[in-house]
């Protein structure tokens, strides 16, 4: 096919080969091009362009596999433009596993990419191979960040204008980053926590890597809610990052290795459920069975693991004792709204549970935000890799958020939470609206009973 053997051509033909091997032909054939996924896709909604839709992207993958087109730079860019929110999957009547197809594509691309600049390569290697696989190292980064925040360096950086060296979206993110806790959940409250009253089940908390650095309090509050609802909670100390960022960035082998290590740790804990409070992590944990389905040694344990994964709100609603919220004082009713975590909704299929929990709280009026089920543009590292599209999506999101007139904007995933904080800051809603993890909000309302 390729006559002129320049290095680019060799790269393309080798990438084509890899894509042919990796892409699941059955899934590609199952897409019947009915177009039902188009209205669900955020990038299609923003652009109206067929190539920016799941049907379009699958057609491009198939065209590469069929030898109709080369996986050129535009192809790579289009695949990276996908948020990976997977809203197309529940919309697909033919049950095409789009998430797997995009993962296979990105994995092949990552093996062959020439587009990363040197520093990006270095950052990626450090992050994916050195830091995230080891929770201690994630914590060091947290400590460094805390030092920056509390030592006066942050003040200095902002004052001297040193921050201006960074791109706008990074600068804005730096502003809203919450203060890092000195210690993670285990260091603060220990490993084992008995249920209050009769024990319904024993559950293990998946604490998350960044979650435990940026939102350690949310982990502590999760334990409180769970024990209150009748669950005994263990937090296996040796657990590490779930591997979601690896899997979504084309580092599938890295994700597999993290999965094996987590499976070993949680299997040893011998629990009934594995609870996540971050939709993004939970969704990958739930798919460990798929991740390791070709691994003869691990696939049974991976299945054991995946069957036990559940989101905290789903566990509370389905199996927990009803949480007691205090009666509200007069004239103190507050208005709240909710932004779905895409992976909680589209992969873990838990969109109802958080809403039911919010409606249980006394003195709270829950208003549904328009397009709450649509991605907020955070999407893992998307904010950093695709700032323009991410910003456009966030602008629309904040218009809808503002229209709800809510004082609290709740969500179920740290990435979404940071993005909502960023949106509120950027749209001048500070003081009117606060972005909070649903667990923290429930915890706060519950604790008012004790006061």
């Amino acid at each position, binding site marked *: 096919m390729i006559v002129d053997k320049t290095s680019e051509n060799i790269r393309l033909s080798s990438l084509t080969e890899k894509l042919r091997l990796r892409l699941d032909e059955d899934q590609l054939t199952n897409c019947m091009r009915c177009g039902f996924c188009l209205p669900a896709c955020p990038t299609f909604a923003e652009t109206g362009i067929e190539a920016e839709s799941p049907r379009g992207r699958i057609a*491009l993958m198939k065209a590469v596999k069929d030898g109709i*087109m080369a996986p050129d730079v535009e192809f790579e860019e289009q695949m990276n433009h996908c948020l990976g929110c997977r809203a197309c999957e529940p919309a697909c009547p033919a049950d095409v596993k789009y998430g797997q197809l995009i993962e296979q594509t990105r994995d092949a691309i990552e093996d062959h990419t020439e587009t990363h600049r040197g520093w990006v390569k270095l950052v990626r290697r450090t992050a994916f191979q050195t830091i995230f696989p080891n929770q201690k190292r994630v914590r060091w980064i947290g400590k460094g960040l805390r030092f920056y925040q509390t030592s006066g360096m942050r003040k200095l950086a902002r004052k001297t204008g040193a921050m201006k060296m960074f791109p706008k979206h990074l600068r804005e993110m730096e502003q809203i980053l919450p203060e890092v806790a000195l210690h993670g959940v285990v260091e603060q409250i220990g490993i084992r926590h008995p249920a209050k009253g009769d024990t319904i089940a024993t559950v293990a908390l998946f604490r998350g890597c960044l979650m435990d650095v940026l939102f350690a309090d949310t982990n502590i509050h999760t334990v409180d809610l769970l024990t209150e609802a009748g669950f005994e909670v263990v937090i296996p100390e040796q657990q590490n990052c779930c591997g979601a960022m690896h899997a979504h960035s084309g580092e599938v082998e890295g994700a597999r290795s993290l999965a094996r290590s987590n499976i070993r740790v949680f299997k040893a804990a011998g629990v009934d459920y594995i609870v996540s409070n971050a939709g993004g992590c939970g969704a990958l944990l739930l798919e460990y069975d798929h991740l390791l389905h070709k691994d003869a040694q691990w696939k049974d344990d991976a299945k054991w693991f995946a069957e036990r994964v559940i989101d905290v709100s789903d566990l509370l609603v389905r199996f927990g004792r009803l949480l007691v919220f205090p009666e509200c004082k007069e004239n103190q009713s507050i208005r709240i709204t909710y932004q779905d975590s895409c992976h909680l909704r589209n992969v873990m299929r838990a969109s109802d549970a958080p809403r039911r929990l919010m409606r249980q709280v006394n003195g709270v009026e829950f208003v549904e935000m328009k397009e709450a089920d649509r991605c907020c543009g955070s999407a893992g590292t998307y904010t950093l890799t695709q700032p323009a599209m991410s910003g456009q999506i966030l602008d629309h999101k904040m218009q809808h958020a503002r229209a709800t007139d809510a004082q609290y904007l709740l969500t179920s995933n740290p990435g979404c939470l940071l993005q909502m904080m960023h949106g509120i800051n950027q749209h001048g809603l500070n003081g009117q609206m606060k972005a909070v993890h649903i667990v923290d909000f429930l915890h706060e309302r519950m604790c008012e009973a004790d006061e």
Partner: protein
Amino acid sequence: MLQPEVRRELIAIVGESYMKDDMQSLVTHSYDGTPMLQSLPDAVIYPYNTQQVSEVMKVLNRQRIPVIGRGSGTNLCGGTVPIQGGVVMVMHRMNQILEVDLENLTALVQPGLNTKHFTTHVEQLGLFYPPDPSSMSISTIGGNIAECSGGLRGLKYGTTKDYVIGLEAVLANGDIIRTGGKLMKDVAGYDLTKLLVGSEGTLAIITEATLKLVPPPKYKKTMLAMYKDLNGAARTVSKIIENLIIPATLEILDNSTIRVVDAFANLGLPLHMEAILLIEQDGDMESVERDIASITAICNSEQAEQISVAESAEEAERLLTARRSAFTALARLRPTTILEDATVPRSKIADMIMEINRIAAKHQVQICTFGHAGDGNLHPTALTDARNADEIHRVEAAFEEIFEAAISLGGTITGEHGVGMVKAPFLEWKIGKSGIEVMKAIKQSFDPFNILNPGKVFAKESRKRVVIDRG
């Protein structure tokens, strides 16, 4: 590939960002909702207004370059596959509701408007636009007009053609014509509005439409009747009509369809039934209740095993949603799903279903049938695999016989999907040699150089209407 000069001219009209000819754009406009059809265009263009459409047409007509109008590309007849290359004209940027006239009960809209957005908008104003093709959450009004889309409500309310009362369209030479208007009566010359509806992009590019709106029904009721005997269900359909009841919806699902829809939508349907009728009546409360009572009696007389009336609006809506997704839900069984729309007079529905089952058995292919039983419009759906050449061959042979059977029963080869590429070889069976000649003459007068969606409707060669037994 377009010549550089043509390319420059087109870019001068719509701007650089709205004329694309990179590989990615070409690949993603090489298909529509029809299985196994793909052909690359030379370019994709996104006009913003009628004037731009007109100028683009002048260039393309002069250069004899094919142009394929496209909404969301969800049709099932290969209607928007650029089989002879050329320029795909995507209407998404022309997506505005220009006016809703509450005095005349009409709406003026652009072709790229999403059908669901439109129906939701008019419903908020207390009005009703009945055409409801299964694809309505993504398809466009322009696409619906070009294909004359039907839907579940066709039996009582008619299809798209019954709601289009005026059009603005650009002819092949770039001239702009206006037909009809906000008029319920208009016999000024030939009815060009009706001619353009369902013309599949072969006569003109539609740039604006005046649509008729109606008052919404005040009350509605949905029921299900289940049968262990398929023929009992089919006879029920005929009997309901015979008793002068025209339900808003009268749908049939056969056993294999029931299983698939249930797995998809978790409705708890009884899986051992051979057929389910989904019936909906709307109107004044009193007459709706009376009709539902009469229909219940008919279902009983035809030995329906189980009859249930939806208790709430939500439950009714869920049942309708399940029917709407039947076509795509079938795709879960096999990789490739080929859906046809052979249509017969409604009194012949039982005969047609039996014919389909006989033909499927004869050719050893799996065909699930569901559809708009009330208007005789069935969707025999073959479940197959595009990679299995032998099986595809048998599926094609079976469909050929199904078309033949439909025509023998006084029916047609297509009720609502259109001719496109898929049924072009069979068009002559339905309308005869003279019919083809008249249609070709019409095409010639609108589009003398055959640039508007060429290769559609008219086949190079008609299929011989003798079904050879390949068994």
